[in-house]
């Protein structure tokens, strides 16, 4: 449902713009790595599932993302499955064009996340869900555009209540197709 809201926003904005001026990019192949605290207090890079698309108009870019992460622990007797879902909206501005192919974008983002936790002990199972919680982010994006192919490396700092470390550093490698 929440993803639908984003799609609606995207298409409303798109429809208000001239088709010739607007470029839409879909990113089906993303590699999203975030440096997070794990249960014993240490830190490691975890991979997140990331589905995103962007719309560009002149030097402006609107990036919409759905990010999901699952974490499981325990054994056959007692185990925990946590699924976190995030919905990102980010605005980026082309701060510097390096050449005809490469550009540097800077941006700010916001959105919300929620988590679902399933706790199981033998035949007992309990599901808990959180409310939607706001987060903020800042991005630097190095983008490559060649005809209909787009590749970009984004470095993001994410500030969210339940995330550690704060801010949480993230790197996303996106490859997509523009039209």
């Amino acid at each position, binding site marked *: 449902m929440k993803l639908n809201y984003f799609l609606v926003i995207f298409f409303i904005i798109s429809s208000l713009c001239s088709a010739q001026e607007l470029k839409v990019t879909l990113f089906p192949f993303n590699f999203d790595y975030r440096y997070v605290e794990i249960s*014993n207090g240490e830190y490691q890079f975890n991979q997140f599932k990331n589905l995103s698309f962007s719309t560009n108009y002149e030097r402006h870019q609107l990036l919409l993302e759905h990010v999901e992460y699952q974490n499981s622990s325990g054994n056959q007797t007692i185990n925990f499955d*946590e699924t976190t879902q995030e919905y990102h909206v980010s*605005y980026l501005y082309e701060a510097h064009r390096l050449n005809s192919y490469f550009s540097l974008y800077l941006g700010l983002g*916001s959105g919300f996340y929620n988590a679902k936790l399933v706790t199981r002990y033998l035949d007992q199972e309990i599901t*808990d869900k959180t409310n939607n919680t706001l987060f*903020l982010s800042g991005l630097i994006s190095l983008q490559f555009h060649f005809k209909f192919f787009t590749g970009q490396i984004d470095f993001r700092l994410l500030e969210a209540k339940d995330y550690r470390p704060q801010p949480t550093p993230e790197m996303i490698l996106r490859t997509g197709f523009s039209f």
Partner: protein
Amino acid sequence: MTKIIYSLFLSLAMVTTLSCGKSFNPDSDSEKGKIRVRLLTVDPLIPEKYKFEVIELLNIFDLTSLSGKFARFYTKAYKENDELKGIQPRAHFLKTKSGVFIPKDELSTNLASIYYHTQNLALWDQKIGAEKINTLPRKIILNTQINGKGYKDNNALYEGKTDAIIFLKYTDQDLPLALNAGVFAHEYFHSLFYKTIQLKINENPFFKKMDEKILALSKNSRSGVLNISMKPLLASTEFTNKGKSILAKTDLAQLTEDSVYDYFRVLLKGYNEGIADFWGWSYTNDINFISHSIKETPTNRTLELKSQNLERPALHSKSEILSSVFVISADPEVKEVYYNTLSYEIGTRVGLFYKELTNFVATNRKISLDEAKLEVSKSIFQLISGWGNDLANSQISLNYEDLPSPQDVLIKFSKTFMIKNAIECEFILNAIKFTTNNSTTTLNQIANSNTCIQNEIENKYEIKPKEND
């Protein structure tokens, strides 16, 4: 038009950012004091079962590291200048709308559970008069490699030198040891025994001297819920016949120092493990609490008469124990392992006796089981405190007659326990009069000079030597 829309969106993002005004601290970082957490606890109606329950953690300083008045945790622990150091773990919780914290992963559940049990047992210490024995917060070690044979995984132990309870990595598929309430209570008791007896006997010149010669009782300050042991010894006819034979040929008036030391070693370790099992039963009402986590134990630790092939509670005799010591000491290669086995066998009878006594007292006095547990536990604490002082100050004799038997220890216990009527007195006296002997569980009456006497002034019964006619 498009530029206006984009600008509006950027403004919205900025406004959201600035007006957010929320703290970016996780809920658990700001929680202190009394905190409601959902954990796995023993079902009071079905002791063999665990269920999810919302409980209160008290006096929490920091929920993220689960540090508070009652416990402090260490991972990757090590000793530096005799001080315990390590990394404080990080727990992760999800907060529900009703303000209850739910552990998100196994480690967080372990930490919260251990803290909860520590707080309960510390409060129990206050009730039984032991509040000055243990210092708070209790130290708990997790996720740490321990040096020593048998300390790799799937075990929990108490170490006296660091005064820490240690949970080794759990690799089985059953209830993790850190969540096993009975196991924690078992380990917790070891801290009481260590401080009231093991530390004290080191003041005795005899034990001090033997410490340097043999693997010491006090130096070997680790007590695990599962120690390396072999299959039951005392049930073996061949074993006990061999023991009887050695005993018959021994000058009992002049035993060797090694034999006397080994006798005390297995007797004290037996009491340590046995009462620890009683503590585990008392905390959970589960006669086989270890089995939730470890399906098979080398020795039968079930606190049930039927499981122990007994008709009524009975302890081993002095001759059984000493003859076993003789047989074991003859084979130095397996000595340590068999001493552990012997200790656990002695201990199970001790734990079973106190559990049966508790049930008997509850029924006889028509009081709740919890009230009966309190009475028995108070007296056990007084027993071990007094026994520790006695051992520290006594001259250890090499005469067989002077060795304390389990029945002698029971008489000591009877002096700390308020025996309310003749029936209770007979219950305890029967455990003194009857013992198993020589590999069977058939009860035999041993030479006994004790009887129940009513003390009308103090309105109680006492077990005392019979007066000569």
